[in-house]
């Protein structure tokens, strides 16, 4: 990996800073996310997913690029739009879909729901559904690493809209002054729920244009190119791991579907979606693989395997019962129960 290059290109594998294994992994994860998210969408329309769900269709390159750049001990802090990041860290499709379907086989057996996916064994330290809160929480995890001399990096994902809430500002300043090993990834998909981010933000690039307010480098990247995301995230994580402090990375992207399951996204200007579908991360990456000489059959193999996994997971979820009633009152307190009195 000596030959660093700025943009991806078909130089052939010998001259490739990323390498075939990583590249295949990047594709595999993107495909897995795409298929699982599409399935989630179908299941919702079959009325098998209750409550809400927030898909990352179109944003797969960010989840994949960052996750592949992470080491096993690194920690992810996600939002309600966290299926992608959870899957990217290696959590099974069944456990994610099971949670979306609020079944006993879900990651939290249905207690948390789609907005709170957590898998500590995979380093997924929770998904937080109140905008802003997890930025300081990620700082705390990074502080623990610094304090204990542990070498992991905490990574925090959030959207463009999140940059306008107070906790964003507090967390960024805090991370810098304590020089914490934390990487903030802003997925700028151009919208908060239904409101274009430009309508409510004083600067064009809600994260990158504010980096200087915390003495940070301005980092703005193409979030639909997994290689670019991977390289940028890797550099930021290396820096954090070596004691160089936090980074803030703004990834430009677009969500193909509405904000949540309930949103048909009618507020979009005509043509916008189509333009971004041209830049679909899977399309880009499939082409990339071919350019790097991966065979069509290898690519198709990845895709087929993903479909198989998602189908199997779906069946397993459908077969899973809901959690037993006793679960209602477990784990409120550390003793496992909910007793607030004697």
């Amino acid at each position, binding site marked *: 990996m000596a030959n660093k290059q700025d943009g991806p290109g078909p130089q052939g594998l010998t001259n490739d800073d990323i390498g075939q294994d990583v590249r295949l992994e990047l594709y595999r994860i993107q495909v897995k996310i795409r298929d699982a998210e599409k399935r989630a969408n179908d299941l919702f329309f079959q009325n098998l997913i*209750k409550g809400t769900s927030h898909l990352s269709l179109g944003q797969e390159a960010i989840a994949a690029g960052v996750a592949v750049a992470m080491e096993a001990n690194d920690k992810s802090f996600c939002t309600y739009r966290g299926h992608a990041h959870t899957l990217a860290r290696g959590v099974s499709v069944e456990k994610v879909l099971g949670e979306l379907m609020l079944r006993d086989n879900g990651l939290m057996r*249905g207690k948390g*729901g789609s907005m*709170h996916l957590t898998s500590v064994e995979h380093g997924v330290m929770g998904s937080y*559904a109140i*905008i802003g809160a997890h930025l300081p929480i990620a700082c705390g995890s990074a502080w623990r690493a610094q304090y204990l001399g542990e070498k992991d990096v905490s990574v925090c994902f959030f959207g463009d*809209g999140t940059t306008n809430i107070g906790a964003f500002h507090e967390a960024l300043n805090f991370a810098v002054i304590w020089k914490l090993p934390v990487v903030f990834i802003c997925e700028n998909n151009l919208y908060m729920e239904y409101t274009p981010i430009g309508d409510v933000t004083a600067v064009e690039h809600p994260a990158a244009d504010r980096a200087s307010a915390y003495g940070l480098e301005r980092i703005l990247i193409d979030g639909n190119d997994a290689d670019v995301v991977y390289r940028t995230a890797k550099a930021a994580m290396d820096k954090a791991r070596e004691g160089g402090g936090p980074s803030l990375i703004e990834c430009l992207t677009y969500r193909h579907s509405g904000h949540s399951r309930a949103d048909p996204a009618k507020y979009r200007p005509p043509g916008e979606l189509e333009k971004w579908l041209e830049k679909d991360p899977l399309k880009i990456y499939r082409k990339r693989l071919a350019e790097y000489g991966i065979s069509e059959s290898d690519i198709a193999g990845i895709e087929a395997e993903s479909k198989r996994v998602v189908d199997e997971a779906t069946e397993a979820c459908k077969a899973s019962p809901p959690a037993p009633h006793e679960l209602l*009152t477990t784990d409120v307190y550390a003793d496992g129960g909910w007793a607030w009195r004697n």
Partner: protein
Amino acid sequence: MAELTYRDAVARAITQEMERDERVVLLGEDVAKAGGVFKATVGLYERFGEKRVRDTPISEQAFMGAAMGAAMTGLRPIADIMFADFAAVCFDFFANEFPKLRYMTNGQLGCPLVIRTANGGGARFGAQHSQSIENWTMMIPGLKVVAPSSPVDVIGLMAAAIRDDNPVIFHEHKSLYATKGEVPDGEILDTLGTAKILRPGKDATIVALALMVPRALAAAETLAAEHGIDCEVIDVRSLVPLDTNTILNSVAKTGRLFTVEENPRLCGWGAEIASIVADEAFWDLDGPIVRITTPHIPLPAADHLEDLALPNPPRIVERIARTMNGSAR
């Protein structure tokens, strides 16, 4: 007279007041162009324009503060908290700013605004999007707190809230938005601080709020039909001011009090009412006061577990029948 949803009642109430008073303005995340995430403000942006109906960034502190500053100086803002749970990210305004301004300034300034919240559970949104926070607001001196259970009450109480010169927290229940009710034509204006007896009864008083009102009513029918217990059901409607007269008079008649609360148990609004009755109507009581609440737990996302958590007619019936037939414990 027309049938209207609770959701549409919100827009109708705001329309009524915006037409009446130029100073009334509405702001919040996605309330304008999108008509709100619960579609309760659909059409207002089109009707009143972007000067009066405004989308905000995800900056609850900024727009709660902006509502307050505008209220202090002459407007009548209505600000929207998309899910009641998010009151926590701007709670300084609820706890320390809106309600204390008039007192701290010895009456020089007031804060006539309305904060709408989409409150309560039942939508399988999980622990951070489903809470009943009426007690978070009831406990703060200086706030008024309203939580209607029907479309007509939404209109009348919202109108009263907007015209009130105090900060009023207006809890809409997200699981009631789709419910319907008869609503008279023309202007509707109700009075804050008035409870309503929705079902007269002689054996026991049930006090309920918002989503718990239809459930208490259903339970009362079953209790009458299957257990021969005739319950009086009171919709509190307004936690502050609190219509203690209606409650105390009812208990004087029935001798028994049950509260049905969606908020988790500890320090719920029912505790306050129970404590008032245990003091002022003690000699009227023929037996224990019993509170039926959501257990003191965060809410689960799973549908069957959430259904288990919130008080529902069978649980209300069971608890009241057991108490009325049995001993104190």
